[in-house]
């Protein structure tokens, strides 16, 4: 051992550090061994963030041997099953709410309720519900982002429109936009989930958060008259011709040019679209944001999907994995990774600072002060996986052939009866 050749005071220091660690729990402990992380943060900016986090964590724990693997974000959605099976990594990326249910049920995610019991985690209270299944927490969030209507401010100004706050104003605005030869909304439904966003908002604005979540839990039949009311509201827009044509052929990115070229005035999207708009050449003077307008007299509920880290239940280095999760949600790290020059999203820790960006500020304000109904995770995370996939296909069909509604709802109801049995 090389240790014996070192001066005595080094050996003493190391041994006292180890002894200290045994008493002080894992806080500030000298972690050692391997820490295997598989991340799905594969897009350029998130990738840099992930690599930066690992570098910082490595610096704090030099004896730890961190092995980071970054997997393509889309591919990870199908690979996670195999990855968690035999010889699992210690830490993985995933999503909150029902999206983690299959892995929790199969016992593949470790219960991290003990982390959430620590005082530092009180600052994460807003996302605790999304991480809870069966009364326990199964991971930690690292970022979330608001959804809302991103619109071309210059077009609104040109037509003398203002941000709508009610459904009637919304429709009146849309009439004016259509009259000017543009479409009100761009959308690309080829990969289905974009239609899920519209349904989330229309349903929760028409009947409130509780009804929407009851539908997600399978407690309300799809053929219910209240669900039909939601689709009737949606149909008003479809019949006006509010959405761009042929949206079933485009991905969400392929639908961006319609708004960038000024052929459509607005886009219901997550905040990640802002970067794409800016890349496409829109300036902050041209681009603005408003909260989805009120339809019925219910509290606002907002889509704010949360991205997460989890520990595999077969993790080899549980101490290091938990310490990494603590590090991820810590105030400094949250401020750093969610800043405008990094992820450009909202920090999950209430004590962290929000990036200096008008969309982030506005979004944070909206979620903190104007979302008393509740926070939705998004259609494909709130509904069970199978229901989400059948459901979003039905939503896409409705947007193209609204007359098929009865058939679509009967199909969804059929699926509901089977999936939640």
């Amino acid at each position, binding site marked *: 051992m090389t240790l014996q050749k070192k001066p005595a005071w080094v050996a003493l220091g190391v041994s006292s550090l180890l002894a200290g660690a045994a008493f002080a729990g894992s806080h500030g402990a000298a972690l050692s061994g391997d820490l295997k992380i598989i991340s799905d943060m594969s897009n350029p900016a998130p990738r840099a963030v992930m690599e930066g986090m690992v570098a910082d964590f490595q610096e704090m724990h030099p004896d730890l041997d961190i092995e980071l693997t970054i997997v393509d974000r889309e591919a990870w*959605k*199908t690979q996670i*099953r195999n990855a*968690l099976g035999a010889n699992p990594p210690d830490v993985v990326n995933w999503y909150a709410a029902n999206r983690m249910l*299959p*892995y929790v*049920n*199969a*016992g*593949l995610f470790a219960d991290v309720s003990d982390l959430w019991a620590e005082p530092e985690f009180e600052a994460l209270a807003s996302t605790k519900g999304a991480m809870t299944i069966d009364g326990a927490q199964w991971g930690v969030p690292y970022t979330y982002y608001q959804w809302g209507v991103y619109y071309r401010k210059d077009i609104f100004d040109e037509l003398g429109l203002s941000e709508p706050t009610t459904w009637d104003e919304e429709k009146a605005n849309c009439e004016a936009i259509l009259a000017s030869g543009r479409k009100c909304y761009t959308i690309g439904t*080829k*990969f*289905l989930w974009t239609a899920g966003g519209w349904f989330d908002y229309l349903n929760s604005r028409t009947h409130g958060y509780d009804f929407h979540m009851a539908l997600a839990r399978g407690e309300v039949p799809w053929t219910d008259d209240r669900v039909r009311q939601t689709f009737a509201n949606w149909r008003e827009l479809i019949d006006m011709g509010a959405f761009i*044509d*042929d949206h*079933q*052929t485009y991905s969400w990115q392929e639908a961006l040019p319609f708004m960038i070229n000024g052929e459509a005035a607005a886009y219901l999207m997550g905040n990640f679209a802002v970067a794409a708009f800016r890349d496409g050449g829109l300036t902050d003077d041209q681009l603005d944001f408003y909260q989805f307008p009120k339809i019925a007299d219910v509290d606002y509920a907002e889509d704010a999907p949360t991205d997460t880290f989890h520990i595999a239940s077969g993790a080899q280095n549980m101490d290091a994995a938990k310490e990494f999760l603590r590090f991820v949600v810590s105030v400094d790290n949250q401020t750093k990774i969610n800043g405008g020059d990094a992820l450009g999203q909202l920090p999950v820790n209430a004590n962290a600072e929000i990036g200096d960006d008008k969309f982030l500020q506005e979004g944070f304000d909206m979620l903190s002060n104007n979302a008393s109904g509740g926070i939705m995770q998004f259609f*494909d995370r709130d509904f069970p*996986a*199978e229901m*989400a*996939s059948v459901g979003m*296909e*039905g939503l*896409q*069909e409705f947007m*193209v052939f609204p007359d098929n509604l009865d058939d679509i709802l009967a*199909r969804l109801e059929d699926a509901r009866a089977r999936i939640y049995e």
Partner: protein
Amino acid sequence: MTYATVPDTHPPAPRGWYKRNQIAVTPFLFLAPAILFFAVYVIIPIGQSFWISLHEWDGLGEATWVGTANYERLLGIGEQNMDRKFETSFWNNIKWLILYLLAIPAGLFIALFLNQTVRGIRVYKSLFFFPFVISQVVVGLVFSWFYLPREGLLNALIGLFGFGPVNILGDPSLATYGIIAAGLWPQTAYCMILYLTGLNAVDPEQVEAARLDGAKGWRMLWYVILPQLKPATFIAFVVTIIGALRSFDLISVMTNGGPFGSTRVLSFYMFEESLSEFGFRMGYGAAIAVILFFIMLAFIIYFLWSMYQDERGGR
């Protein structure tokens, strides 16, 4: 044990067991590696798929035995209706099987056209063969751009003749045909190559004799050339049927099964139900795979049978 029953403990010549059975055993020794791998990678998985199809399993936790419930749901046995997605996928598979066969006559005529000696014919041949060399994913991407509703070349072309724009991949009644057309492009090239090599083997003396007897044009093709191309036609038929049944990548790239699931085929549906982002129904997916397997088996048995007939006839 058998040792006790060996009658002669002093055999006249110590010939080993292998020496005595050499003729019978050696073929199996040579076949052993192939049999082993075929069993591990083909036969056993087929059995496993069948076994999984009798369970309800999310691919993660414990599997529950459900007997034939998955098949009953798929085929609508009992009170329930037939699974509509399955129905759509099945009929799309049939469309693929029938329309994909167009690659054979198309390949034949291109081959006949290219089977001549002019300057630079090799260049033309390789240009025609080119679509088969590029990946199916690239073919899918190229065609989906070709079909784009606004910017696509197809709409620019039909616009010249005064037809309105069509969104082929966005129209549930056209999308499957659009994908099949994309698939025909490389498949025709494949059949063309098969026929080009077949045409090299056509006996010039027979052609000469037929010409002396006054055969030309269609009659020459039908009665003299085509019978000699029979082996090539058979292979073209086999690869085209197989190509149609494993049409997966084009669908995945061009429409992802959409719009509203109208372009699914059985293999894609199986993938969606069991392995995709939202697919957690391993048992159901396996049941689809088993049904697809039986459809393929019908063709495979026919192919094997006709090959067997040929071999018997050849002897």
